[in-house]
């Protein structure tokens, strides 16, 4: 299986769009006698990767589309029935699908913009040559060492309605708990996600800031631009490709956010955190493979569209940027 949605993956696609996929110059076959053996070596070397991709990426991708044509019977002893496109139609026009998609978009809006703003703010704050800055940088990066599950269990326990420290500070100790609130469950899950991702966004934005040429900022300073105006007029425009990149990666990651939902709310209360990926998972757990496959196809096409936007953007950046 591939790990699309992770940062280097999307970046890689961007690089291809930028035309970085050409052959090394001048690496032509020299002796024709070797070519047969060369071909054998070539195939032998790519075979392991190709075999894994064939069995665990391409075959299952096609099969997911195919399984969407079969409606699973309510009893496991009855075989699934071929229903053509009708299951695609019924699932993709259902209220449950659109409700889960709406919650997913809400989740993206709650996590991505704020995550990027905080990442840029932290990186700018830590972009100074002052004593002790290494300590702060390490600390801000530290959440990359936590997994989604680690972050979720920490917050779940701190939000425990009876003994959780955060519940106490929020003045709701003894109540139902924030994760059981229709209004606050999704924002709470989003907060955990933003916290868990802040280390990655910080690292990304810090690297981008360090890539900005010092003399550009110096020139702006000589022209009389103050700190604030240097940030808005010089730093931020130069940061924009990385911000865009973080946005795409963030959207994809938010569409795939599963662990935090599973550990914090299981889609509840009353479906208020039942995002698309969790809906897919519960369909699968209920053995409704037909419906789960249609949802998987929908998720795949949405993420493909987001990735292609990145693809086009990098193309433009390289040609006109």
């Amino acid at each position, binding site marked *: 299986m591939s*790990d699309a949605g992770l940062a280097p993956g999307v970046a890689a696609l961007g690089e291809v769009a930028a035309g970085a996929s050409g052959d090394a110059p001048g690496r032509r076959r020299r002796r024709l006698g070797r070519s047969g053996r060369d*071909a054998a070596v070539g195939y032998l070397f*790519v075979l392991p990767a190709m075999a894994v991709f064939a069995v665990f990426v391409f075959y299952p991708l096609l099969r*997911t589309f195919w399984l969407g044509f079969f409606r699973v019977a309510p009893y496991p002893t009855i075989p699934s029935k071929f229903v053509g496109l009708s299951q695609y139609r019924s699932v993709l026009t259902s209220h449950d699908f659109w409700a889960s998609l709406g919650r997913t978009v809400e989740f993206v809006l709650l996590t991505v913009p704020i995550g990027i703003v905080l990442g840029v703010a932290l990186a700018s704050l830590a972009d100074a040559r002052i004593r002790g800055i290494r300590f702060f940088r390490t600390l801000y990066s530290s959440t990359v060492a936590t997994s989604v599950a680690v972050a979720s269990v920490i917050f779940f326990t701190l939000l425990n309605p009876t003994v959780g420290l955060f519940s106490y500070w929020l003045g709701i100790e003894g109540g139902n708990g924030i994760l059981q609130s229709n209004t606050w469950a999704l924002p709470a899950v989003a907060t955990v996600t933003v916290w868990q991702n802040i280390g990655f966004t910080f690292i990304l934005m810090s690297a981008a800031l360090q890539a900005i040429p010092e003399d550009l900022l110096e020139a702006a300073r000589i022209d009389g631009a103050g700190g604030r105006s240097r940030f808005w007029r010089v730093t931020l425009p130069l940061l924009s490709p990385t911000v865009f990149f973080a946005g795409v990666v963030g959207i994809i990651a938010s569409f795939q956010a599963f662990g935090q939902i599973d550990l914090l709310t299981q889609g509840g209360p009353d479906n208020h955190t039942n995002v698309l990926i969790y809906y897919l998972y519960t369909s699968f757990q209920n053995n409704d493979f037909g419906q789960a496959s249609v949802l998987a196809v929908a998720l795949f096409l949405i993420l493909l569209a987001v990735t292609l936007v990145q693809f086009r953007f990098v193309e433009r950046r390289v040609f006109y940027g």
Partner: protein
Amino acid sequence: MGRHWGRTGRYALLAVAAVVVGFPIYITVVNSLLTPQQIAHRPPTLFPLHPQWGAFGQAFTTAHLGLYLRNSAVVTVSITVAELVTSVLAAYAFTFVQFPFRRVLFFVCLATLMVPMEATLIPNRQTIGAFGWYNTFPALIVPFMASGVGVFLLRQAFLQLPHDLHDAATLDGYGHLRFLMRVVVPLNRPIIAAFGVYAFLTAWNQYLWPLIATDSDSVRTVQIGLRQLQSLSIDQINVIFAGTLLAALPIFVLLLAFQKQLVRGLTAGAVKG
């Protein structure tokens, strides 16, 4: 004067941000050293004056953390090694070996980047069932033994090598395997290490697939173990905190040891340097 104020202000903001970002981990450490009664006590204890270390032992005995950590180590190390081997080999072939359909096959590798794991989940669960792999390590390892990201990143790096190098090595009688092991790999150690750290982190943190491909403690990884840990009752709340720390510890150590490689792995391609 204004400059001095600016620096003080920056330190103040840095400190506030440090508290906000660092607090969840700090309080996890504190709570892992308290008794459940102390954790429930109000006002809360924010510093453990008399640290109790028992929760860590309990995490191993009652929550089987040792087993989960061992399983995660087996799975993660296997995936990382396999991804490195398959990616290095494929990237090498795509850079230094001429063979028919080379370009097509490279684009096939890249196409995998557009397929999220979720889109292949259901058939893959059926496939491992058909192979008899449900609840085994191969189910957790084999589907991830190749990486489109790895092939791409390493090929990009291999392309930077001066092309005379290959010609010279060929004249010296080096075969492909010798050129790969003696020249290409040593010269690209930094990017290989960066990808290795990235692969390790990704594999260690997997959640959805291990949840679906297993239901037995004997092979479940620590991320799924956390799910069990979380369901402990609140009179073992200190064990939850201690177990969570232990689950995160290997990656913390990795982060400190390989900070540079991690940064490079995470930002590869994102920033035009």
